[in-house]
């Protein structure tokens, strides 16, 4: 039994165990909350059909299992979920898992590009602002950061569409690719990239300003610490100080924020995907709420919980990698 398990693996396993009750609680909570909302799938379907008689509605409800009590429905749902069966979407007329898989790629792509852009540009600008603290450059960067921070992403999205698509005609208004293009290979990549420019900018600018401000404060703080003075006393130059002694220590709080914010970025993607009509989870979530497509909505929430748990786990790994004082146990 005493096989040497690498600490990282045992840590990962333990984190997985910890995540299970969290996700179960999220699912139960969401299920009950959604049941509290007025109306269900049948109401939405009947509404779309322009009305139906009471007997038909009753039959439909019985068929979908909606005539049972909330607790029975919850139990059935959770039991199926335990087997990774997300159920059937009565709106899209296909298994929820297939819809989710179709949409997941777009959302992950949008989030990955947005977050990496926000993080990279944010820390670079933050470090520059801190090294030239209280100069014109710093003021300019900090003011820009403040403006981005204060601008809601929907407003930014609409203004960008107005400028770059409607007035200048440089970028596509929405979607993930040109439907009539049938591009392949690098042309396809370039086409998707063109479609992603505005959504990525809209989603990342707010977070960019978070990272910028935190990084600036963090660099200023670390630059004053004793070990930076020690390095100076050893004869290290400013570039060396920045690269070897300041940046890595200053990054730690920013990395923490990166993990914490992932879920809010996921939330933000609902707005951005809807505006830019990107076929991702965010847009799907919005439509599922409107159409009372409970199974799809629950599936999205389940998937998002897992993504957040995984990302937080990865953040912790990154943190342990960056900070030698932290050991995974």
């Amino acid at each position, binding site marked *: 039994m005493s096989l040497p398990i690498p600490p990282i693996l045992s840590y990962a396993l333990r984190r997985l165990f910890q995540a299970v009750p969290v996700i179960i609680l999220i699912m139960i909570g969401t299920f009950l909350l959604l049941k509290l909302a007025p109306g269900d799938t049948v109401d939405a379907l009947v509404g779309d059909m322009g009305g139906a008689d009471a007997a038909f509605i009753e039959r439909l409800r019985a068929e979908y299992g909606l005539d049972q009590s909330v607790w029975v429905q919850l139990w059935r749902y959770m039991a199926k979920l335990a087997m990774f069966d997300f159920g059937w979407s009565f709106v899209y007329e296909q298994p929820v898992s297939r819809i989710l898989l179709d949409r997941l790629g777009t959302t992950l792509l949008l989030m990955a590009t947005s977050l990496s852009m926000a993080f990279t540009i944010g820390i670079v600008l933050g470090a520059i602002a801190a090294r030239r603290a209280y100069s014109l450059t710093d003021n300019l960067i900090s003011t820009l950061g403040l403006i981005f921070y204060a601008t809601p992403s929907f407003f930014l999205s609409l203004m960008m569409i107005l400028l770059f698509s409607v007035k200048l005609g440089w970028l596509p208004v929405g979607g993930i690719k040109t439907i009539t293009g049938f591009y392949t290979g690098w042309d396809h990549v370039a086409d998707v990239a063109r479609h992603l420019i505005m959504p990525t900018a809209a989603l990342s600018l707010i977070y960019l300003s978070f990272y910028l401000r935190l990084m600036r404060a963090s660099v200023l703080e670390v630059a004053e610490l004793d070990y930076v003075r020690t390095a100076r006393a050893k004869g290290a130059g400013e570039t060396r100080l920045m690269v070897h002694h300041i940046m890595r220590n200053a990054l730690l709080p920013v990395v923490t924020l990166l993990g914490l914010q992932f879920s809010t970025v996921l939330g933000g993607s609902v707005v951005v995907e809807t505006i830019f009509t990107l076929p991702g989870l965010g847009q799907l979530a919005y439509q599922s709420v409107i159409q009372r497509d409970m199974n799809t909505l629950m599936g999205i929430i389940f998937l998002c919980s897992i993504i957040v748990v995984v990302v937080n786990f990865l953040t912790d790994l990154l943190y342990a990698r960056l900070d030698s*004082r932290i050991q995974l146990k």
Partner: protein
Amino acid sequence: MTEAAPTPALKIENLRIALPKGSDRPFALDGLSLEVKRGEVVCLVGESGSGKSLTAGAIMRLLPEPHVHVAGGAIFVQGEDILAKSDKEMKAMRGERVSMIFQEPMTALNPQKTVGWQIDEVLRLHTDLSRAGRKARVIEMLERVHIPDPASAYHAYPHQVSGGQRQRVMIAMALCLSPGLIIADEPTTALDVTTQLQILKLIRELQEQEGAGVLFITHDFGVVAQIADHVVVLKQGEMVESGPASQVLNAPQHPYTQALIASVPSLTPPPAKCFDAAPVVLKGTGLTKTFAARGGLFSGRRKSVTAVDNLTFELRRGETLGVVGESGSGKTTVSRIVTRLLEADSGAVELDGTDLLACSPREMRAMRKHIQMVFQDPMASLNPRKRVVDLIAQGPIVHGENRKKARAQARELLELVELSPAAANRFPHEFSGGQRQRIGIARALALRPKVIVADEPVSALDVSVQAQVLRLLADLRDQMNLSLLFVTHDLRVAAQLCDRIIVMQHGEIVEAGETAAIFADPQHEYTRNLLSSIPGRDWTPPKSATNAA
């Protein structure tokens, strides 16, 4: 640059360092001249604010310019005028010709880089050695500073080695390229007394091997007596005295030096008083506290640490009991358990016969007025947003005293601790460290306690202020017939104030008894080691009748 006599390692002429406008004085340092010969240790001594550390900053050209800058004079490091050097030339000098050892080895080392990497950096910056050559040199340096197992220490991070070893790493770093001048800025202040002695010896040993000049900055005359060849005394930026160590230590000329040296507590305790007839006020029996580092729901338990193990003591009315030991010995845990700021695992603390550990929270609130605490850091332990009068009156008001009366009493207490009554309406930050500690004492006295537990109350203070606060504590104790439980790491302080001491190691009492008896004839190996490590123990400060306690 060619001089007939051998070039001194450091020569400072009439150095003047300007402070920003609006500071308490225009110059942090005004007209300092000194010389450090090769193979010589010069101690720069002064209290906080005397400008000692800024002198080091000026020599390294690392002052926080332009706010604080050299406004006049000259600094020659091995004959070279460093004020005339370009930034690039200066960078080449730092680490190679002049190096520095800092006070706090924990914060002075980068937590994210291994010990080996950080020493290696000096070699990378100043030499063309190959990677293997550098590594060999680093390991050789670690050996020279007597670090056990240098090869594995090379790969250790700073947090993985002890405080003393970290300071050895700093020293290895500073001596790596055999610089002609080493500046040591309070290098042993943060260390325990036994480690301190080892580090002082190490600095001496390596300096003799290398023949370097050492500028040793300190506030501690014991350390001066231990290591100095020559002493320079600074007071508020002005040099008041300079001379060979034996002369300055034993026959100080300037009144300020005389006062400073007179403030150094003597190692000879006053004759023991007899407390056998006095009633026992505070009694601890079988106190035990184990810190179990608990993990989360699914994470394993970590190793637990027994901070206090089956501790038993008695404190009589009017008596002072010292709790001494090195860091990690459990002294502070004892003070926290006795005041029930920390729950003990087992044992009893009887205050006038009532077991405090068995009291309900409500009963404990009532009992608190009989046992009060004075903390180490007077700045951190006073609420910065409250006026002094409210800070002192707060206790009595909580215990049901009328507001007006409590405030009037607070003003009286300020007089008792020798502060002007005008201090009542000011805020803590407007006072000096010593004055703040007086406020802390007045706050503790406001409830007229029977017992005061003082946790390192003078270790953050300058020596002259420390002497005043100790005298005040002794006077108040005698006037009010108070019992004092006095936690300290400083054996000189313990010798002066405590009637009896208990010596702690790893949470256990290794020796207990009358202070005079223990100092004269320590029984336990650990106590003997502690006492023989006191810096400058062979030097008896010359003093007049004004004793510290």
